[in-house]
């Protein structure tokens, strides 16, 4: 069953990027195009999600070449829901910048590049081909490199260099893994590899390839101790760019990890599972410690990304249907909440004239609606019911309890408390504290309707995922079921062959 719907999420922003590039220099037009693109992406992604939800995994054999030979796009429920969430993010960011003339677009290439970034994220989520995944990763990386270096401050360039070199290592390892895997299996299609790996066990090459993929994806997902590139770079870009980064980039790494280590190399019972467990715990702890030590709005958020990634990979490492569905739930929740928080980081910085919490303040009294909207993602991230983060944490916690993993439970609780601490720190400094005397006084201009719409749109989903957990979680359970049943994926892609 081929449906071009699968490629559309990736290709729509791509085409819009091209149009924007042709119209470069016309910033106003680009803003509206971004909005239009966001709307179309949402529609397409929603249609795709609906299709997959009702009719199961969909595939698209690109170029019309049948499955293992050409590149196949595969939308199982996981991919489709991630694409859907990505389209939410895309639309929210487009809203945020659409009519927000206060949000300066630093460079004429920024908006088209953002579209290309989205395109590559969709591509990475939907492709069913290992090498094609690599290509999407590279597109994503180079786009983010370029977006980072637009900052042009010394720190921005420094951050960009770190980002480039560390991710380069990841790419080399990824390529090496592809080489090894191709040498052994002679194929690149995920399903086909999985089918062939199924016959072989304990082959040195496969173990090597699995390990290399593990390393490569760890770097992309910013797991401890290979997370350094993330906090070094994320806060140098305009808010809506770091929101996209913070929401999506690392999550693509997590997605790749989930896909690879359920479909191709099921983690269960391997030493990698133990390794992932240890790494996840360390990631959770170190991320949150990093956040506690910071006094910069967006840097706190950056460190929190790391810590939260730990929860997701912990879900993968615990390896039970519940744990996997919890990890997926966490993934969906986190993309939305984190993007939103980064947008607030931008708003706060603009209203107070600084990103530094010490120089911010007084927003609670001067900008009440902003403050209330901020609380939704912030409390969600800190795990307050009934927002999405509460259920995400609750589910991982229950999975850990069921796995009798006492250490995981304790660490999760400590990290949860520390997360609460740093969210409250932001609240207390930026919102409650009176604006410091020497700082620029908070501007009395309210953010424009567009910015409010953007953040409110995402906040709505945060609330929905929480209140509607009874609806969202069964989907995650279905996803976990699909992930654990490799045969189902393989069959959907390769048919009876």
């Amino acid at each position: 069953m081929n449906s071009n719907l699968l490629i559309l999420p990736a290709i729509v922003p791509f085409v819009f990027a091209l149009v924007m590039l042709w119209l470069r220099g016309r910033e106003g037009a680009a803003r509206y195009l971004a909005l239009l693109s966001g709307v179309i992406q949402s529609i397409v992604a929603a249609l795709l999600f609906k299709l997959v939800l009702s009719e199961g995994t969909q595939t698209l054999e690109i170029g019309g070449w049948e499955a293992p030979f050409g590149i196949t796009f595969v939308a199982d429920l996981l991919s489709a829901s991630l694409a859907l969430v990505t389209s939410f993010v895309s639309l929210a960011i487009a809203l945020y910048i659409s009519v927000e003339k206060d949000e300066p677009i630093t460079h004429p290439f920024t908006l088209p590049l953002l579209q290309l970034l989205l395109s590559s994220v969709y591509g990475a989520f939907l492709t069913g081909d290992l090498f094609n995944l690599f290509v999407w990763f590279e597109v994503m990386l180079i786009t983010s490199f370029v977006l980072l270096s637009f900052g042009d401050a010394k720190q921005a360039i420094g951050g960009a260099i770190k980002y480039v070199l560390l991710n380069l290592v990841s790419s080399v390892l990824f390529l090496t893994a592809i080489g090894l895997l191709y040498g052994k299996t002679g194929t690149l299609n995920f399903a086909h590899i999985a089918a062939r790996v199924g016959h072989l066990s304990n082959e040195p090459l496969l173990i090597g390839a699995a390990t290399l993929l593990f390393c490569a994806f760890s770097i992309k997902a910013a797991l401890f101790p290979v997370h350094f590139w993330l906090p070094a770079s994320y806060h140098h870009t305009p808010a809506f760019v770091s929101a996209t980064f913070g929401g999506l980039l690392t999550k693509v790494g997590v997605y790749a990890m989930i896909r690879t280590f359920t479909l191709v190399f099921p983690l269960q019972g391997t030493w990698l599972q133990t390794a992932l467990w240890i790494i996840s715990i360390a990631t959770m702890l170190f991320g949150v410690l990093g956040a506690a030590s910071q006094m910069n709005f967006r840097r706190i958020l950056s460190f929190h990304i790391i810590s939260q990634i730990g929860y997701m990979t912990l879900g993968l490492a615990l390896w039970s249907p519940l744990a996997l569905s919890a990890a997926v739930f966490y993934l969906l929740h986190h993309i939305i909440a984190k993007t939103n928080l980064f947008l607030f980081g931008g708003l706060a910085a603009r209203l107070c004239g600084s990103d530094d919490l010490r120089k911010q303040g007084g927003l609670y009294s001067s900008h009440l609606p902003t403050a209330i909207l901020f609380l939704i993602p912030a409390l969600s991230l800190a795990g307050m019911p009934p927002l999405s983060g509460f259920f995400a944490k609750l589910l991982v916690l229950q999975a850990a309890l069921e796995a009798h993993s006492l250490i995981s439970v304790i660490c999760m609780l400590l990290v949860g408390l520390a997360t609460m601490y740093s969210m409250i720190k932001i609240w207390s400094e930026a919102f409650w504290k009176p604006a410091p005397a020497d700082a620029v006084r908070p501007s009395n201009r309210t953010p424009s309707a567009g910015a409010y719409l953007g953040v409110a749109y995402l906040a709505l989903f945060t609330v929905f995922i929480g209140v509607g957990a009874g609806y969202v979680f069964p989907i995650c359970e279905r996803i976990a079921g699909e992930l654990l049943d490799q045969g189902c994926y393989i069959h959907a892609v390769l048919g009876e062959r």
Partner: protein
Amino acid sequence: MSPFLLRTSVKFIAPIQLALALYFLLRGHNEPGGGFIGGLAAASAVLLYGLSFGIQEVESKLPVSWFSFALFGLSLAVFSAFISVFVNQPFFTGIWGPELYAPLVGKLKLGTVLLFDIGVFCLVMGFGVGLGFTFFAKEAER
């Protein structure tokens, strides 16, 4: 080599190189070559020309920037991929036209795939030349 000699020889070599690049492009489907190789070869021709005659000289002759040229290539490539969507085939499916016989190149089958390759050619050429010129300009700035 004196500048004069260099310029004269480049004047002869560059067009040949360009022609060669086009040849690489068109026969790429059947013999070694293709959009990349053609594009890179073409880029080197223009770069050589630019180096010997000055960048301004080349750029003033061109109505569009090299970036637009590359952009055109990329757009063409995407467009070629899209054609199949309009006839309700999977994205990127090759749609084939008649087969031509071109002198020197040999048999040449027209189709979206060829269009795609031309897109790649334009992009790579634009990339190569644009980059080279940017770097040269940076150097000349001193």
